[in-house]
């Protein structure tokens, strides 16, 4: 959808009524309790879900159970872009550059990007040039000219506890706008450093569900700003919240079976190309671009 963030905020926003949110929580709570019986989690040793884990469990459980990997160049570029978006939101009058974004991250106590760039030496220039191009596109999205009355806040934390805390779903929304007590509807903004694909919508849907459960009020829109120039605007309808809840329910079920000892399923697809588990995964090794499973 070709629409800038400013157009979205200026237009009419009609969030769904809060009706049904309590029922949605009850359904998820039941699902989490059922999953907990199988998975064996407790309040002290809970299942901790994030947007990455929910997507990962649905996409390929084998990858989810792999070791955490070191920092890659792609990930670092993504972090620089992400930091630039947040810097532009809180300091709209500043020029948002790569160096400013990296300094912002360092000031927040995260030196991962600085360390990675230092390790790369002269090669770091290539990454910074790549990030600069993406940041320029991001600035054009309107994220850096928000009316303060929208209460823009970055990395807004949201956490939902289910089954008396035996399952938690937590995340940090890149930029959150509006909501109580501003008198304006809630708008979720997620920033993505790569190229648009339809699967990116899932993060906004999950966060819309979590904010609805936290605040008792559903967001009006989830906006995904991608550095390939795409701004995807998604009005939040009750059906989308229901869909997000169903995905979460399914992810909890998969997690429960894995925790109970079931071998992880391996679902090949385009994600295999960058999967660090691929050397240990016969299905992933056999996968080639252009096959039927390429759509994921």
């Amino acid at each position, binding site marked *: 959808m070709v629409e800038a963030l400013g157009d979205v905020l200026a237009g009419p926003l009609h969030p769904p009524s809060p009706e049904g949110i309590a029922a949605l929580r009850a359904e998820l709570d039941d699902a989490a309790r059922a999953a907990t019986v199988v998975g064996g989690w407790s309040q002290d*040793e809970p299942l901790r879900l994030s947007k990455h884990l929910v997507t990962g469990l649905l996409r390929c459980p*084998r990858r989810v*159970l792999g070791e955490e990997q070191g920092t890659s160049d792609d990930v670092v570029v993504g972090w620089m872009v992400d930091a630039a978006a947040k810097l532009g939101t809180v300091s709209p009058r500043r020029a948002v550059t790569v160096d400013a974004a990296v300094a912002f991250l360092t000031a927040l106590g995260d030196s991962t990007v600085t360390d990675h760039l230092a390790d790369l030496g002269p090669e770091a220039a290539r990454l910074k040039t790549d990030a600069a191009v993406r940041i320029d596109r991001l600035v054009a999205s309107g994220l850096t000219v928000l009316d303060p009355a929208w209460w823009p*806040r970055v*990395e807004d*934390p949201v*956490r939902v506890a289910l089954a008396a805390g035996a399952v938690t779903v937590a995340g940090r929304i890149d930029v959150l706008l509006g909501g109580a007590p501003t008198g304006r509807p809630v708008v979720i903004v997620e920033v993505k450093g790569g190229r648009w694909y339809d699967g990116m919508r899932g993060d906004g849907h999950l966060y819309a569900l979590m904010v609805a459960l*936290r605040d008792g009020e559903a967001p009006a829109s989830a906006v995904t700003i991608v550095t390939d120039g795409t701004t995807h605007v998604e009005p939040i309808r009750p059906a989308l919240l229901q869909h997000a809840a169903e995905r979460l329910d399914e992810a909890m079920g998969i997690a429960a079976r894995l925790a109970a000892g079931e071998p992880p399923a391996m679902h090949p697809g385009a994600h295999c190309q960058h999967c660090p588990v691929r050397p*240990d995964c016969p299905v992933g090794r056999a996968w080639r671009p252009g096959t039927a499973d390429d759509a994921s």
Partner: protein
Amino acid sequence: MTVDDPVGTADRLRAGVAERIAGELAGAAVPVGDVYLGWGAALEAATCPARYRAQGAQGWAFPGWSPPLAAGACGRAALAHHMARADLAGRPATLPTPLDAIRAWMRSLRTQAEAGARAAPPVERSSVGDWIAETWAAGDSATLAAVAATAGRWLAGFIRVLGWPLPTQLTLLNAPGPVAVPAPSWRPDKASPVTVACGADGRIGKVTGAGGFVLVVHRVTTGGDGALRDRAAFEAAAGSLAIGVVPASVLVTAGDTGERVTAPVDHQLLALGANRIVAVVTQRAIAAERGFDPADATPSPACRRCDHLADCPPGQAWMAAAGRWRGGLPVIPPVRAGL
């Protein structure tokens, strides 16, 4: 059973905690340096004593301001400044926009720093305010932006969960300004190296001998903040020590979950909080003698981000264990690692 003698109970708590702290300090093999004892230290000492002991002098004392640490302090100061300006103008405070309120407070600090005593309206001096003024003078815009991000998040969450207008009779604590009061802290005696700092963000109601007031503790996130009852217990005890009167309850709010939970303060809660406080001094005394000792480590997912993992065999063993769990799911180590 609730506390029916708020002043006498606080007095007895002070005497008891002071005695226990003195005992721990006297039992230390070498003299103990400064100990800044807030909730962060209590949580560290309880979750992994080895990691707490490994922090060294910089970690045991007040670590100095940084954007993540200053989030609450700057958020409260900005809110206090916003309320004070309305007060000076003789009008009710309007709903602040978080980023504007923080910028307005920062600008006032800079104006005051440049104009000295001639600045009007004056901004109350504070440690965090001095740090911001110095940061501004140094031209460190990255740090100022980071403060705007963290403090803006704090301020938005605080108001969202407490509601606007803020509760009547709310006094901001740990914030400068005419509508706020300084950090409630307590030392067992003037010569003690121990400072117990209450991290409450606000107080609802006046402090009187009858108690009855409520401490407000706002948590931006709950995931790494320990159990709610532990936090309430620590702040109830620290607040009682600092104020000299036991609060009726502690209202614990959370930005990430939207929770508002009231924990009534009774003798059991105070005892739990006092134990948490003394436990920090116990670990600090052991640290003076033995320093970092991985034998007392409590491996957990926190090992993943621990600065001392390289020197901690229990943590390394936990990280390397086949079949270990990450967030409730098993972890499959790479096949190649075992070859």
